[in-house]
């Protein structure tokens, strides 16, 4: 197995164009499990951990650019946590300190699991994905980027460069159901923003459908919103919970999140 370790984004994109089969690697919290258990043996790995341009975050014209290599631990730091409070809450529920030090936002998008904790908070904030390739870059709304369970819209030769968000400033929260606080893959999760400026409520659920779903309503429809969210989900029975329980939990979480955000 070859490990390709580019030192710049240009080099990374050139290598990805030359080796489209190379699997992108950031913190390794998803891919290493597959390698350790021999579930996957790619011909080549593209180690992106040394690419400076993918690290950290920046502010441009009121929008935030979150580098694909931004870790959950970094999302929890001030001032970013204050700008994206629901994403910070979600990041705090990811794994353990060890996992939060390694796991990245870009990796969560790359894996595109229906249970990805960063996805619902980014969806309610209308995030866009910056996708780069040797031929240039393009932007795609996150809800179009997520096309199925563990499937995203990346094409051959493309890498996730960053996530763009314009913080709404709206009261927002993230909640997650699981058997304990740490090391939990969500049974189901919910991010919600009550946006008084746009007179809109936006909710996104995880682990309750093939992709993280987005549901919107006007502020005046708050009373029926928990039912709308539960109805929009398409959960399944699996080892972590039943479809019926997940729908019920989404109703409860939506009601609680509304109480929190409209208070």
């Amino acid at each position, binding site marked *: 197995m070859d490990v390709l*370790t580019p030192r710049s984004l240009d080099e990374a994109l050139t290598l990805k164009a030359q080796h489209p089969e190379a699997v992108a690697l950031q913190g*390794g919290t998803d891919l290493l499990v597959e390698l350790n258990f021999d579930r996957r043996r790619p011909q080549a790995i593209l180690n992106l951990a040394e690419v400076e341009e993918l690290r950290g975050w920046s502010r441009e014209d009121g929008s935030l650019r979150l580098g694909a290599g931004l870790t959950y631990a970094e999302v929890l730091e001030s001032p970013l946590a204050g700008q994206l409070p629901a994403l910070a809450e979600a990041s705090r529920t990811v794994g353990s*300190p060890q996992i939060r*030090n*390694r796991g990245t936002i870009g990796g969560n998008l790359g894996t595109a699991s229906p249970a990805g904790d960063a996805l619902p908070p980014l969806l309610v904030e209308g995030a866009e994905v910056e996708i780069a390739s040797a031929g240039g870059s393009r932007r795609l709304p996150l809800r179009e980027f997520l096309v199925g369970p563990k499937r995203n819209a990346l094409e051959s030769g493309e890498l996730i460069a960053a996530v763009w968000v314009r913080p709404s400033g709206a009261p927002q929260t993230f909640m997650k159901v699981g058997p304990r606080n740490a*090391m939990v893959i969500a049974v189901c999760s919910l991010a919600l923003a009550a946006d008084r400026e746009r007179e809109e409520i936006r909710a996104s659920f995880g682990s309750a459908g093939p992709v993280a779903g987005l549901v919107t309503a006007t502020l005046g429809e708050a009373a029926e919103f928990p039912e709308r969210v539960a109805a929009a989900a398409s959960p399944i029975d699996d080892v972590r919970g039943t479809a019926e329980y997940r729908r019920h939990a989404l109703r409860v979480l939506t009601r609680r999140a509304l109480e929190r955000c409209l208070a």
Partner: protein
Amino acid sequence: MRIEVTVNSEAREVDVWGGESLLHTLRERLGLPGSKNACEQGECGSCSVLLDGKLVCACLVLGAQADGHEIVTVEGLGQEGQLHRVQEAFVETGAVQCGFCTPGLVMASVDLLERRPDPSDDEIREALSGNLCRCTGYAKIFEAVRLAAAR
């Protein structure tokens, strides 16, 4: 492929297979079996090491990703004949039962006390939440962290 790493303050060169974890590199190639191999999926924390000063599960880092970086394992904490104060506290409070989880818990405790010299109980809980002790010796482990902090 050959990588260069600094392990416990010593520069080392080692040949690795591209698909192996840093844990495998440490245990099987660098002669450092202190970091334990249990779940291999980041659930148990028994392979916790410091990578460039950050607490990570060595099983979830690709060995090749450590090239050019600095690692501290449990072997690098104390001096010859002198345990680290966290290790001493684990011994004194009886926080070691079967001992398998101990290296990981010691590393997580050292990392916590570096960042928070006087942690609250909730901060200890949070800091150790990625480490499992299947002997369920958590009460003594908490005592050990509190004792190490007090010193």
